[in-house]
């Protein structure tokens, strides 16, 4: 493995993000090639965390744009500060300024409210990490606009002219695949799919994020959640949920999983009524037994 990728992996782990080789490789390549990184995967597998860790690694600012339906340019890019503009117009009236001079004044940078995209482009102290979260929630029209920004890293504001990126930001785009995102945007980005972690990786994550959890408990939790994910659930629990659950169990001073505690705290990982009903006490006991047996087999072998 290339030294830089290996180092990146280690650096991310030091910041609490247990990456695997494919994540480290993707981040390395996105940084080297200067391309946005499109990250797909189920909710809670750590897509957003990549951007956080990246910004900490680079010692730069994380600028986040949360997408939602109806997101438009005035929320994502810029907006004029209307109250200030109106105030200025009133004041100018009294002083008898010409219309042209006034227009120049109120449509200047001082009256511009920078939204995340513009802020990422105009950041002076080195490139920012721009996280465009859940792009699949935005409208297709916005996706098309975003494509333009990510291609040229410049935007045009009619009143001001074209603003070019001072430093091209590192861009992470995430998607939960609630809808297919357009091919053009997909082509613009490098691609990373994050699957649910295997038991070993999940144990490593738990050990790193929940220091209070013993090796044995972390293993049992990881195997139990792995067993849950193998079932036909409406919402499969992600790593974020596993971490919450491990924290809850630590708070309850559990050293091992037992069916009663699991049943009482399962709301940390199972967040759908239908899924919860599909897990009667007998099923939970079975999963707990399997998780603990796995620990025994691991210790014996």
């Amino acid at each position, binding site marked *: 493995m290339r030294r830089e990728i290996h180092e990146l992996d280690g650096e991310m782990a030091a910041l609490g993000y247990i990456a695997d080789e494919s994540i480290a490789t993707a981040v*390395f390549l996105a940084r080297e090639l200067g391309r946005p990184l499109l990250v797909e995967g189920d909710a809670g597998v750590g897509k957003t965390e990549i951007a956080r860790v990246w910004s900490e690694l680079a010692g730069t600012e994380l600028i986040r744009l949360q997408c939602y339906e109806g997101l438009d340019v005035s929320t994502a890019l810029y907006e004029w500060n209307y109250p200030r503009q*109106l105030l200025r117009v009133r004041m100018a009236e009294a002083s008898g300024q010409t219309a042209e001079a006034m227009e120049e004044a109120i449509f200047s940078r001082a009256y511009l409210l920078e939204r995340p995209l513009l802020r990422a482009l105009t950041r002076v102290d080195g490139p920012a990490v721009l996280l465009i979260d859940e792009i699949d929630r935005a*409208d297709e029209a916005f996706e098309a606009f975003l494509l333009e920004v990510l291609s040229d890293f410049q935007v045009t504001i009619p009143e001001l002219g074209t603003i070019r990126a001072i430093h091209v930001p590192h861009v992470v785009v995430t998607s939960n695949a609630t809808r297919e995102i357009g*091919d053009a945007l997909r082509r613009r980005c490098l*691609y*990373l799919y994050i699957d649910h972690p295997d038991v070993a990786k999940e144990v490593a994550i738990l050990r790193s994020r929940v220091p209070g959890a013993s090796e044995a408990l972390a293993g049992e939790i990881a195997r139990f959640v792995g067993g849950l994910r193998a079932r036909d659930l409406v919402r499969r629990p992600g790593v974020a949920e596993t971490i919450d659950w491990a924290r809850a169990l630590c708070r309850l001073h559990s050293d091992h999983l037992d069916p009663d505690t699991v049943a009482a705290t399962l709301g940390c990982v199972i967040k759908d009524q239908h899924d919860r009903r599909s897990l009667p006490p007998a099923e939970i006991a079975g999963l707990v037994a399997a998780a603990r047996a796995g620990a025994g087999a691991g210790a014996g072998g």
Partner: protein
Amino acid sequence: MTRPADSAGPGNDLLVHLARLASALRVAGVRVSLSDEIDAARALVRIDLGDVDEVRRALRCTLRIRPADAAHFEQAFARTWLDADDQPRSDRPPPPRQGPGVKVPARLAPLAAATDGGDPRNEPPEEPPEEPDDEPDGDRPGASAQALHRRKPFELCDERDLAAMEPILDRLARRLATRRTRRWVPVDARARGRADLRRSLRRSLATGGELVTLARRVRPVEAARLVLLCDTSGSMEAHARFLLAFARSLRRVARRTEVFAFNTELVRITAWLGVTRPAVMAARLREAVPDWSGGTRIGECLAAFVARHLTALVDSRTVVVVLSDGLDRGDTALVGESMRRIRARARRVLWLNPLAGDPRFEPTAAGMSAALPHLDLLAPAHDLASLERLLPHLRT
């Protein structure tokens, strides 16, 4: 592992390998563009070429290999990249590209859906934004000839009747398939709508900062996406012609309509609805749909839809319409479970049932009662008048 050694630029040998890999992927139906290959080449000079796993990871990242294509990639990678290494990889063969009931290859399907409706004349007409608010709900009687058609049960309709019904079907389709978006667009100042501060202010400069008129903005009406699931089994045969006419109307107005027929199997028929003459279309369908008007297994077919198409085709903007009598010969628990999943994703789920027109109708058919808790609306669909009564329910 005797790959070309790390060097400053990608060697010829490396580029040849890359080109062979890309073409193998294309043959397997994985779309790889030239720009992807260029990215891949740029990536290859930056990684450790001696590490096959790293090469694989870098290629997957730069060639944008999605999980669904992973098996194809592994195969192509093993064949074109590792062949010289004399170490055959025991990767599992890729799953078949298409499920048993689907006639359109999965990879081509989105393309087919995008292009077969590409006739610009089929585009939904640009509607003035305020129209849906002012449009009558369709309860008013039209011409007398139309009135006749209104109460004629669909099973008695011939092709001429269907043609006469087209305007009403179109209107119904438009109501069903449009909705207000959440974006704002500017409109004429006389129109109703929210104040648009940005444009108002801009305009006020002409009058010395005095806001004489307020600019307005509204949320435009957008064509929604539709998924239509038509039961074509024996008990529905009499209605199938009408259903198809309805499906065609929907396709005319909706931005994206996907149509499936089901009886014992689920078949994606979107691509065949472009045919202009209903008779030709019906004949084609009969040929293509296995066991047209045979028995029904609604549960299995809905479950197949959920498994293969739900994520790709249904989102919070999609209206799902099931046209069926709910007379199921299969597992009805599956009907309920599948409908629950569909509802969890869709904007709205409607079930049109031709039997529901009978005043004595109770949704007691096992399949129907299993689906009922997961529907936004169960409505009769035995004649045009019944469909018209649907309109007020479909406000967006």
